[in-house]
C-alpha cells in the first residue's frame, strides 16, 4: 500500500477486500513463519524489556503506568498481519508484553486524503482520536512543519538506536526528533517476461514505442517523475525543479502519443493481474501480493535505480496515549519483532538487524531485502511552492 490519490472510500474498501483475499494465502504462510520467528522474539522481547525499563527511568514508557491503557493506531492497509489487531502476531505480542491494548485501524488510504480529513481538527489544535499515525515522508514533513506532530520524549524509545543509518537523519526531521520510519517500499517495474520477450533492466522501456498502450505508470508524481528522471540520467534525490519539469514534459509527450494504457494509483494492479498491462511502474508491496498467485509476473529495480518511499510513525498533537505510542515504537524497533512483521507484510524493515533474524526465504526476497545495487533513490523534499508547481504540471500532463 502506498501514497495514492484520494479515492472514493467505497472503492478502496472494495479493493482492500479484494487484495486481502489475495493476500490471505500469503498471510497464512507468513503467520506460520511469523510464529516461528516469534518464539525467540518473545523471549528476546521480554529480556529486552528489562533493559527498556531501566533506560526509560525518565518515566514515559514504563510498563506499570501503561498497563490497561489503549493505543489507537491509524495505518495503511496491508501494513500489519491480517490488518487485524486480534490476529496480528506483532500486536498480540505487544499487548502481551506491555499490557497496552491496541485499537488498530488500517484506514489511511492516501496521504492527501488523510490530510484533507484531519487538517481541520489539527489546525484547531485538537486531537484526531489517534495516538500514532503512519505517513509518507513528504507528508510527514508537512505535518511536522505545521506543528501537528509531538516531539518524541528523549529516552522514550531506546531501541531507536537500531534505525538504519541512512534513515536516521532525513532533511525533513534532522535527528528524527518527531518521527521514526515504519516501513520502506520501493517503486520499480513489474512486467511479464513472456509478453515483452525476455528480461527487462532498463527503466526506459516504459517509453519504448514497441510497447505502446501496454504500459501503465503511477499517478503518484514522485514515483513516476522520479523513475523517468533516472531514465534521463537525472538524480531525483538532488535534481532541480527544471529536471523534474523535463521529466514531466517527457511523460506528457509520451502520453499524447498513446504510450500509456493508464496513469493511475492502486488500480493499476487490476490491469496488471488481468494481463492487459505488460509493463507497469509498480509498488513493491503490491507486486509481492500479486506474485503470490501470479507466477508469470516479474519484478525489477531497473539498472538506473528505483524509487524508495519511507512511511513514518508520527504522534499527532492531542494524542491521549503518547507514552503508549512511544512504547509501540520501541517494541517495533527490536530486530526480532521487526523480522516477524516485515516478513509477513513484505516491506523493507527500517530496523537494523531485522533482516538477519529472518528466514532465508525472506532474506532472498527482493521486496524485503533489496540488493544494494541498483540504488534506491528518495525523491527530494520539495518546498510547498515547488510541490504546487510540479503537482500542477504533472496533473496537466497526465489528466486532461
Amino acid at each position: 500500500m502506498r501514497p495514492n490519490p484520494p479515492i472514493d472510500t467505497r472503492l478502496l474498501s472494495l479493493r482492500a477486500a479484494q487484495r486481502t483475499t489475495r493476500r490471505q494465502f500469503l498471510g497464512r504462510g507468513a503467520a506460520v513463519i511469523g510464529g516461528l520467528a516469534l518464539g525467540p522474539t518473545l523471549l528476546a522481547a521480554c529480556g529486552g524489556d528489562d533493559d527498556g525499563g531501566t533506560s526509560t527511568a525518565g518515566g514515559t514508557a514504563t510498563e506499570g503506568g501503561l498497563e490497561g491503557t489503549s493505543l489507537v493506531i491509524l495505518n495503511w492497509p496491508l501494513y500489519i498481519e491480517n490488518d487485524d489487531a486480534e490476529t496480528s502476531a506483532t500486536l498480540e505480542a505487544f499487548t502481551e508484553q506491555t499490557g497496552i491494548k491496541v485499537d488498530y485501524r488500517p484506514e489511511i488510504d492516501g496521504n492527501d486524503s488523510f490530510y484533507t480529513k484531519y487538517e481541520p481538527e489539527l489546525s484547531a489544535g485538537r486531537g484526531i482520536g489517534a495516538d500514532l499515525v503512519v505517513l509518507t515522508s513528504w507528508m510527514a514533513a508537512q505535518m511536522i512543519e505545521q506543528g501537528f506532530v509531538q516531539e518524541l520524549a528523549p529516552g522514550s524509545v531506546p531501541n531507536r538506536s537500531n534505525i538504519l543509518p541512512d534513515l536516521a537523519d532525513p532533511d525533513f526531521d534532522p535527528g528524527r526528533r518527531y518521527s521514526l520510519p515504519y516501513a520502506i517500499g520501493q517503486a520499480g517495474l513489474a512486467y511479464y517476461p513472456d509478453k515483452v520477450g525476455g528480461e527487462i533492466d532498463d527503466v526506459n522501456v516504459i517509453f519504448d514505442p514497441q510497447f505502446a498502450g501496454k504500459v501503465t505508470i503511477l499517478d503518484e508524481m514522485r514515483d513516476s517523475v522520479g523513475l523517468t528522471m533516472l531514465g534521463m540520467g537525472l538524480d531525483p534525490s538532488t535534481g532541480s525543479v527544471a529536471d523534474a519539469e523535463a521529466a514531466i514534459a517527457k511523460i506528457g509527450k509520451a502520453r499524447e502519443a498513446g504510450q500509456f494504457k493508464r496513469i493511475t494509483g492502486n488500480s493499476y494492479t487490476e490491469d496488471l493481474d488481468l494481463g492487459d498491462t505488460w509493463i507497469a511502474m509498480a509498488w513493491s508491496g503490491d507486486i509481492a501480493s500479486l506474485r503470490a498467485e501470479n507466477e508469470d509476473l516479474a519484478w525489477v529495480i531497473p539498472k538506473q535505480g528505483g524509487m524508495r518511499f519511507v512511511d513514518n510513525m508520527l504522534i499527532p498533537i492531542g494524542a491521549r496515549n503518547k507514552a503508549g505510542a512511544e512504547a509501540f515504537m520501541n517494541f517495533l524497533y527490536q530486530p526480532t519483532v521487526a523480522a516477524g512483521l516485515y516478513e509477513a507484510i513484505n516491506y523493507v524493515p527500517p530496523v537494523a538487524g531485522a533482516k538477519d533474524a529472518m528466514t532465508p526465504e525472506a532474506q532472498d526476497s527482493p521486496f524485503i531485502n533489496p540488493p544494494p545495487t541498483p540504488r534506491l533513490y528518495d525523491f527530494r523534499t520539495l518546498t510547498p511552492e515547488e510541490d504546487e508547481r510540479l503537482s500542477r504540471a504533472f496533473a496537466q500532463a497526465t489528466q486532461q
Partner: protein
Amino acid sequence: MTTEASGVRASRWYLPYLLLAPGALWLVLFFIVPMFSMLQLSLEDRGFANYTDVITDNGTVIVRTFSYAGAATVAAIVIGYPLAYFIAVRGGRWKNLLLALVVLPFFVTYLVRTLAWKILLFDGGPVVAILQGAGVLGDGEGLLGRDIAVVGALTYNFLPFMVLPIYVSLEKLDRRLLEAGADLYSSPARAFRTITLPLSLPGLFAGTLLTFIPAAGDFVNSELLGSERTTMIGNIIEKNFGKEFFRPELSALSFMLMALILVGVILYARALGTEDLV
C-alpha cells in the same frame, strides 16, 4: 359554528410549513450551507480567475464529460424507451417480473457491477475475443480505456433510471385514446407520434434528468473502465481535491458543472415543453 370553523382554519395555517420543515431544514443544512462555503472557496486565492483558469485548463475534459453524459442518455433512451413501452403495453402478467428484472442489477452494488464489466471487457476477455473474431476490433485492439467502454458502462448503470419513469407514464396512458385515433384512421405510427409520445414526455423528461445528471458527475466508470484519455470532471475533482492549493479551482469546477447542468435542464425543459406536464 363559524367561529369554530375559522378557529380550525387559523390553527392550521402553519401546517404546510410544518410539513415543509424537515425537507427544507435538511436542504438548507446539507445543501445550501455547504454550497455557500464552496462558493466562497471557489473565489479564494485569485477570485474569479479561478473560473476562467479552470475552463482553459479543463476545456477538453468539460466537453468530454458532457459528450459522455449526453451519449449515455441518448443510448439509455434508445434502449430504455422500447423496453419500457414493451413492459407497459405488452407486459401483461409478466409486468412485475420484467420490472423486477430491470431493477435486479441494482441489488448488486454499483462498484461490483462496474468491476464486473472490467472482467468482461478486458483484452483477454470474452467480449474482445468475440469482437476480434467478428472483425469489429483489429488484432491487439481492446475496449477498456476507450470512450465506448465508459459510455457503455454509464448507460448500463443508469438505464433503470430511464426505464422506470417512462414505464410509469406509459402505464397510465389511456388506451382508449389510441383506439379513438385508430377509429379516426390514424396509422399506428401516427398515433404513437401524436398520442403516446407526448403523453409519455413527463416520464422521458424525468428519465433524462435522472440519467444525465448523475452521469455528468460520475467518476467511477471512467476510473475503473477508462484511462487518462477518458478523464471526466468527476475524476479531476476526485484526483486533486486532496491537494489544498487545487481546492479553489476544483470548487469553481464543481460550480461550473452545476451551472452547466442547470442551464441544460432549463433549455431541455423549454424544448420539450414539459413545464406544463410535470
